[in-house]
């Protein structure tokens, strides 16, 4: 059994501030799984059930990273990525796609639309997802 990777989600020493993740997922069970896990690992979590709601939430608060499903009602993950390209502030937020669509053409399309990474749900543990989220936040901060 592979060892579970630990998540070192320490806040900055001088002004401790939690990292903010926006979870964009229409399935309420998956939504809860991501939210519970990420909150336990020290993240603040914003939730949207599809791309349209995610666009609205972005206007209220900018997250450090967006965890984005693809197949959703009203506005899909790909449509959301296209929509944020028109907003110079929104498009700076790194987006990680997490989907069960795992074909090469889906991955290429996601990255062409600006996603920084593409995760396939069934290939990762929930812990791997949390580790990945923190990696992306830290990588993006260094830039």
């Amino acid at each position, binding site marked *: 059994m592979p060892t*579970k990777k630990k998540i070192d989600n320490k806040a900055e020493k001088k002004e401790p501030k939690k990292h903010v993740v926006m979870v964009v997922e229409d*399935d309420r*069970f*998956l939504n*809860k*799984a*991501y939210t*519970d*896990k990420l909150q*336990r690992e020290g993240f603040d979590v914003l939730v949207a059930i599809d791309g349209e709601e995610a666009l609205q939430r972005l206007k209220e608060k900018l997250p450090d990273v967006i965890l984005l499903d693809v*197949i959703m009602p009203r506005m899909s993950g790909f449509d959301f990525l296209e929509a944020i390209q028109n907003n110079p502030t929104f498009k700076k937020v790194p987006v990680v796609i997490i989907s*069960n*669509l795992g*074909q*090469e*053409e889906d991955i290429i399309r996601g990255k062409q639309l600006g996603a920084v990474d593409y995760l396939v*749900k*069934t290939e990762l*543990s*929930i*812990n791997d997802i949390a580790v990945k989220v923190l990696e992306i936040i830290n990588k993006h901060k260094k830039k």
Partner: protein
Amino acid sequence: MDKSFLIKILDHISAGVLVFDRNSKIIYANKNVYFLLDKKNRNIKKYPALFKDDQKITDFIFQELEHGPSAGKVFKIGKNKKNLFLQIIPFAKNHLLLLEDVGEILRVRNEIEKMKTSFVSLASHQLLTPLSSIRYFTEMLKDEEIGTLNEFQMDYISQIYDSTKRMIVLIKELLSASRLESGKFHFNKEGIQLDDLVDAVIEEFSIVTRANNCKIIVSKIPNPLPSLYLDRASLRQIIVNLLDNAIKYSSKKSAIIKVNIEINDKCLLTISDQGIGIPRKDQKKVFDKFFRSDNALKLNANGSGLGLYMVKLLVNALGGEIWFESKEGKGTVFYISLPLRLTEETKA
């Protein structure tokens, strides 16, 4: 029966019926022969003239007469490329040629295939979503993130977790098989060192091989091996599925599994085991979808029956061939012959 009545019947059936003699002379042809072949001239004396633009059809007819008839074949015939089923029935003096328009049947079959593929893709995706959440919640329970579990609770949660993972694998296999069957699989050509790939897969199986007391020995000719230019994911899946079977169906302690790679103008991959073997009565069905032989079921109730089916689909799609030798109680050897590189024709 009255001959003229028989001819009336033949003129009214949808099939084309043609009788010719040993000198290829047409003795009788109903009107549908000319209709199906778009021939206005009904004074053609010899049947090859009906197919003068389609050499492969006259070759087929010749083969059927020389070597004995088959069940027939579908050809695209004529200017309009109609899908016509052609069958030859030889007799002592004269021979029968049957033609049937199967365009509509093929069209409906293709529609059904497309609907099946869409359904499988949608169903698989919809099934994978709740399975993903079951997996995530059981992972968090197993990792005791919300409280410690006693031994029995841990055992039950582990059973749920393992079953969930098996279901996910099964659905993904069904989805892959469906895509391959419909020709929607995309292959990527890249340089592959097959021995490195085999070693990586063996490493993945290391815990299982230890638990099953198996040893895997790899040999290669030449050393070092030249690169193959094929699809890595497909090659990996082929090796995984065959090694998984070899390990799973080992009946001996200290069983040895041999993997041999030989590359010259083709790549020959051989995987041999000392396992339970495949009973002779089952050997024709081994590559069938969902098939599992009785001795395999007795030894190991788990398994989707898709492993070898997928291997054959992948090998064929890569332009290769697969065959095997097996003796019940002794073991099995699988041979996979692959081209050295993907070409436009070998891509799915």
